[in-house]
């Protein structure tokens, strides 16, 4: 069963090719990791899939439906949720308010939306902070809020853009556990991450891109020993030496 | 037929002056991403500065440029540095800080009414004006001389700003900031200083427009309001942030205003201007010559 299928996706900005004929497949219930050096086009790929902008060429299929160029709010209602690399809370509002905005995606009633939001916050051990102004949260809590908002939309597929950047090691471990628990609840996860330790522990499969092109794909253990990947990350000299 | 050509020529000349008037607005928007509602007030300040410079020294109107350009640059630079910058810093996390727009509106109210208190409501025009009513005859057609000078000034100003932005270090820093202020500040560009300079350039450009206007236009405290709406329409027509767009947008307005009355009442030409504005918003909201819009 395929949750997300990306065929031959290309995205150009002016003359610059940020994504070059990218193919991706994510099976239902798995965690796929996307890694690559800075500027490889990871966030651009996410933005194309999540509808922030349409790809220049290529097809995207989500849960059997073609979604190329679909608007983000419609994708959200179809069950595709995402987080942002630069977290964007509704800063003047409380944590609960933030998550309630998201849970309105599936209901029109404020009472139900708020109840759902509380449930999501509690499932992330975040319930005690629901009345805090989101603008005053720590980085770790902002990342957690970002995930809570995405979850409150009741997604089938979750796109996570560097939710562990800036976290302390013990917080990273906690986040890995949270994400694994989400997968075990049946949510498919597609994750961009820089912290190698985390992505290796987390992913069922990993895709590596460089200059917008896929250079490797496989199990975490295969990727860790892939020569091309090591070159991409550390440069030629390292491998030769 | 000759009349229409004559009208068209005068329309292009006047339109280029409109464009020059709007150029400062579009420069400031391009860099700060904020509509400066005090723009008309800057024009008013520039016109009073020109008026007093010429009246007190008795120089040729265009020589006032030497005084007005630096004076307006300094005025704009410090207006941004002292009044507007603190708001930007307080709202640096906000994508499109409405509070900054509002502060410029406050500046507008203060400047216009200060002018009213200091200079009184009366209309002033240059007493000793060598360009007054001067016409140039070309093949049986009459062309206003001060407007022709304004046209030439507008072209020179637009080209100079274009050159400055493309070729100088400061110009490139300004362009980098206007494209991506976060990336620019990561590369060591002090975005707030760039804002000061951009505001200074915008004000100085508006000062140039003031100099070209004064030989055939009165100055009074609310003169800026008359140009405000026109400038807003011009920059949307031309594309917010585009310098050549401002010039062309101005010329379009000038042409409609000068040729239109041949066929209809003046009211309807105004209606056509507003109608064109709404039409452009619907059909090509980024402006006739602008980049594609973003959020």
């Amino acid at each position, binding site marked *: 069963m395929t949750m997300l299928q990306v065929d031959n996706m290309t995205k150009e900005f002016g003359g610059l090719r940020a994504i070059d004929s990218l193919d991706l497949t994510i099976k239902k219930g798995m965690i796929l990791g996307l890694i690559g050096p800075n500027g490889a086009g990871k966030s651009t790929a996410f933005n194309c899939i999540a509808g922030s902008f349409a790809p220049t060429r290529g097809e995207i299929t989500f849960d059997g439906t073609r979604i190329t160029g679909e608007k*983000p709010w419609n994708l959200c209602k179809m069950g595709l949720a995402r987080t942002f690399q630069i977290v*964007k809370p509704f800063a*003047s509002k409380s944590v609960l308010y933030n998550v309630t905005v998201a849970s309105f995606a599936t209901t029109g009633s404020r009472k139900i939306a708020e109840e759902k939001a509380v449930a999501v916050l509690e499932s992330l051990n975040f319930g005690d902070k629901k009345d805090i102004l989101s603008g005053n949260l720590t980085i770790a809590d902002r990342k957690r809020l970002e995930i809570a908002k995405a979850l409150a939309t009741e997604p089938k597929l979750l796109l996570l853009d560097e939710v562990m950047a800036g976290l302390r090691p013990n917080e990273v471990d906690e986040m890995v556990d949270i994400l694994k628990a989400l997968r075990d609840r049946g949510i498919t996860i597609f994750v961009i991450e820089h912290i190698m330790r985390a992505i290796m522990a987390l992913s069922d499969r990993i895709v590596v891109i460089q200059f917008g092109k896929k250079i490797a794909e496989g199990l975490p253990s295969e990727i860790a020993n892939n020569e091309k990947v090591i070159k991409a990350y550390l440069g030629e000299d390292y491998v030769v030496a | 037929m000759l009349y229409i050509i004559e009208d068209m020529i005068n329309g292009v000349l006047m339109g280029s002056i409109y464009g020059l008037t709007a150029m400062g607005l579009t420069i400031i928007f391009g860099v700060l991403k904020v509509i400066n509602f005090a723009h008309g007030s800057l024009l008013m300040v520039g016109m009073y500065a020109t008026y007093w410079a010429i009246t007190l020294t008795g120089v040729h109107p265009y020589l006032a440029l030497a005084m007005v350009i630096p004076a307006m640059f300094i005025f704009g630079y410090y207006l941004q540095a002292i009044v507007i910058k603190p*708001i930007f810093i307080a709202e640096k996390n906000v*994508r499109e800080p*409405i509070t900054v*727009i*509002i502060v410029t509106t406050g500046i507008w109210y*203060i400047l216009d009414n200060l002018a009213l208190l200091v200079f009184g409501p009366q209309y002033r025009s240059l007493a000793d004006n060598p360009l007054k009513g001067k016409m140039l005859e070309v093949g049986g057609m009459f062309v206003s001389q001060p407007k022709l000078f304004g046209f030439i000034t507008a072209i020179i100003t637009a080209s100079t700003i274009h050159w400055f932005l493309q070729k100088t270090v400061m110009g490139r820093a300004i362009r980098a900031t206007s494209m991506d202020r976060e990336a620019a500040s990561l590369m060591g560009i002090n975005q707030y200083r760039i804002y000061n300079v951009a505001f200074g350039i915008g004000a100085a450009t508006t000062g140039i427009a003031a100099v070209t206007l004064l030989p055939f236009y009165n100055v009074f405290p609310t003169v800026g309001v008359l140009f405000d709406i026109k400038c807003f329409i011009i920059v949307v027509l031309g594309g917010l942030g585009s310098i050549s767009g401002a010039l062309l947008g101005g010329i379009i307005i000038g042409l409609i205003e000068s040729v239109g009355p041949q066929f209809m009442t003046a009211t309807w030409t105004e209606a056509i201007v507003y109608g064109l504005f709404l039409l452009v918003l619907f059909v090509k*909201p980024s402006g006739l010559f602008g980049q594609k819009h973003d959020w």
Partner: protein
Amino acid sequence: MNHQHFNKVMIVGLLVAAFALPLVVRSATYMHILVLLLFYAYLTTSWNIVGGFAGVLPLGHAAFVGIGAYTSTILSLQYGVSPWLGMLVGGVLATIAGVIIGLPTLKMRGAYFALATIAFAEGFRVMVENIDYIGPLKLNGPRGLQIPPLETGLTSFMFATKEPYYYIILVMLLAVMLLTYIISRSKLGYYLIAGGEEPEAAMALGVNVARARLIAMAVSSFLTALAGTFYAQFSLYIHPKSIISLDMSFEIAFIALIGGRGSIIGPLLGAMLLRPVSDFCRIYFGDTLPGMHLIIFGLVLIFVMYYQPRGLQEPLSRMYQRLFTRKTLATTGR
């Protein structure tokens, strides 16, 4: 007495005071000032639905006041239609106008919307000033329209004294404040605020930001036009410069911004603070220092934006809470 209970008592007390005020204020001049204060509070509260909650900056709301005033007045003068019915027709026409301006601009940077609303309002004023007739409809250009006195009473929307006007605009204000309260607690309210603060994040959470804003704009234009009819019936004389002026559009926005945009009480608070300032400045400095009240407006605006960018409502409600309810709030967000 817990704080919620106390708040309720407070609200009832204020309502009683508002309704009893005309019994105390006997001067027609002061009643006039009070009616205009409530009129501006009503306009600003209506403005706030789009300008406050949706996080965009409409600067041409006087156009909707004008549409409301002219529609009901023309219908009543030429066709004998009751102003109450004309009020609704004006509301519908204003809604259409609001949607037409909002449709292309509300999905772009806020600057476009602000400019489009100003240009629309100015364009509309220029048209009305220069047109005497549209087909059979008499607009009378810059001279405006005079409403001849009819038999007074609720059906004719015309009264000999100020008090009935006071009560009508008071009820209108309370209704629109209640509506704002309901919206702020609804899905639409959450979507407007989310889209106003972080449009991109909101869209990813299922919010069609442009559509939410457009709905807010439609509601706001409709409500604003109703006040236009009220103004026409109150002053019995409308002309383009008085009712479609840029000054009015900006004053509405200023009151909201200084009072506190996006809050329910902010617009009323702003009107209570600013209207008296401008009335008294006009009375005392009008001749000697023309424009003094506008300089004060500008300065107040800059200082409020500097120190209280969310308006004076925030420190004042904190003060209220400290004084009366002793409840420490960890958050100001609802």
